């Protein structure tokens, strides 16, 4: 079947091990990659093919034998579904807020940690702890010991300041969730920005000082441009994980009150596992993936540029 193989080979390969024929050589190169590739295709791509098929069917798991073709009906429902639109908006707002705030805080902390001071190692160690905490536990901890209206620490502090207690999770559900996400992801942003700060060349900074640039001017004119790829990388990777936020919502608000904190993953989960509506959930999945591909193709191009930059620098 490989008879028509085009005459590749040549420049792409180094002249080592000339014994192998070009085609054999190509297969030898492909061989180590194949198991991983096949595994990923089976586990991640085939389910998606089925998602597409199910999305054209009406199928409720609670009613046996209810499976039948309905064409585009599920899709029509998705686009007229105001709950889906709400979930989409919640998703965008939640992700954008969490990424932006944790990046700003992360930059602040990274700048703090970039200087030598007593106990820097310990401070760094303490600061990365929130990222390592299991997200389920993070939601649990904040909902109970931190934000509880009566027994929570935050309300204790508010009372000390003479303020009235606040039922954060019920009155400000979005802010509560974003707080936990920011708490978890600020260390991540900090680590990436800190790596960027520490990769700055001392000579350039010295030269700026010699030229009489103040600390703020140096930061704005030299450090910020240098940090740009690192910030982009942090935002991008943070966003990849944060769009899938589920655990914290499940533990803290269950998407509520009402639908105030129902993001896309949580909405899909509700449709599939609480409503048992396979067809509808699948159509939602397909639409979500289509949207993700749109955003991701832009993001991926950025990612490649960023990687190329940091790889060159290393």
């Amino acid at each position, binding site marked *: 079947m490989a008879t028509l193989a085009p005459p590749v080979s040549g420049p792409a390969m180094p002249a080592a091990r000339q014994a192998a024929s070009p085609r054999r050589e190509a297969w030898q190169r492909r061989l180590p*990659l194949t198991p991983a590739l096949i595994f990923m295709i089976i586990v991640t791509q085939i389910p*998606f093919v089925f998602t597409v098929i199910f999305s054209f069917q009406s199928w409720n798991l609670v009613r046996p034998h209810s499976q039948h073709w309905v064409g585009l009906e599920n899709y029509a429902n998705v686009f007229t579904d105001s709950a889906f639109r709400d979930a989409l908006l919640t998703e965008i707002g939640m992700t954008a807020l969490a990424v932006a705030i944790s990046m700003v805080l992360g930059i602040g902390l990274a700048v703090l940690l970039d200087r030598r*001071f007593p106990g820097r190692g310990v401070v760094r160690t303490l600061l990365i702890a*929130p990222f390592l905490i299991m997200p389920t536990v993070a939601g649990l901890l904040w909902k109970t010991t931190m934000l509880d209206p009566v027994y929570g620490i935050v309300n204790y502090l508010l009372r000390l300041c003479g303020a009235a207690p606040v039922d954060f999770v019920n009155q400000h559900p979005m802010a509560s969730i974003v707080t936990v996400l920011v708490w978890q992801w600020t260390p991540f942003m900090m680590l*990436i920005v800190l790596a960027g700060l520490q990769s700055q060349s001392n000579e350039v900074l010295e030269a700026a000082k010699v030229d009489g640039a103040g600390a703020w001017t140096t930061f704005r004119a030299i450090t910020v441009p240098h940090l740009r790829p690192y910030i982009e990388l942090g935002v991008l990777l943070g966003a990849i994980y944060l769009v899938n936020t589920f655990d914290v919502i499940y533990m803290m608000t269950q998407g509520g009150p009402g639908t105030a904190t129902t993001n896309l993953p949580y909405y899909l989960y509700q449709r599939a596992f609480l409503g048992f509506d396979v067809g509808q959930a699948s159509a939602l999945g397909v639409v979500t993936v289509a949207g993700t591909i749109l955003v991701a193709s832009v993001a991926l191009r950025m990612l490649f540029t*960023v990687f190329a930059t940091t790889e060159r620098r290393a």
Partner: protein
Amino acid sequence: MATATPATPVTPAAPAAPGPASRPLRRILGRASWTAGAWLAALVFFFPVLWMVLTAFKQEADAYTTTPHLVFSPTLAQFRAVFHSGIGPYLANSALATVLSTLLVLVLGIPAGYALSIRSVRKWRDALFFFISTKMLPVVAAIVPIYLAVRDIGALDNIGTLIVLYTAMNLPIAVWMLRSFFLEVPVEVLEAARVDGVTLRQEITRVMLPMVAPGIAATALICVIFSWNEFFFALNLTSVRAATMPVFLVGFMTSEGLYWAKLAAAATLACLPVLLAGWIAQKQLVRGLSMGAVK
């Protein structure tokens, strides 16, 4: 009462400074406030974790109070209660899913990373793109068919299912990371080995693997963190036999939600392995989290 105090410790600290005393003073104050600011930030961020651990050692009466009790007589009663409530199998399942999926990731990922770097296939860029794109697709979009398939082959509530899914979840990150570590192996070393006439297998096992060993450790660490903490698949695909720690916590919260000390003890146990692993391997963490992009 503090009128004269700030001046006194400064003068002996900078005896050699011939200039005005205000400059070293300002520098010292600046450094002190920098240090204080950093420590304050660390304490604010670490506080919820610290509080969890403290609460775990309290009696329920000390945990559930309107005024937080900082002084209390520590007890191991909560940890004992958690162990008696049957946490064992959940811990074992978490450990099994984490360790086996991480091993599987390495077995599949190391050759793949190699094939995308040192002796790279022609379309390495496309392959790399494919791997990472699977990471961008929301997991929830595939959960319905995964659930149905798993149900139909009778693999619901089976730890093997979680192992396969966690492997798929971590493999793309691992491939990217491992590739970046392979790229760091100096070409000269490999060429020298070839000149010495080593076989391909020797080149890989004797020359390359020792050089990328730290990278492999970093990759494993990231896989361990993500699979130990994973909740979505565990929630939807397991119930009793194969349930992991996050699932245990959900059930525990429903049944013991009002017992904060017990809850904190369970949460502490759930977090401890990853927290310790992450702290021990701090240096590798940045590299791993950025999929190898940041050194």
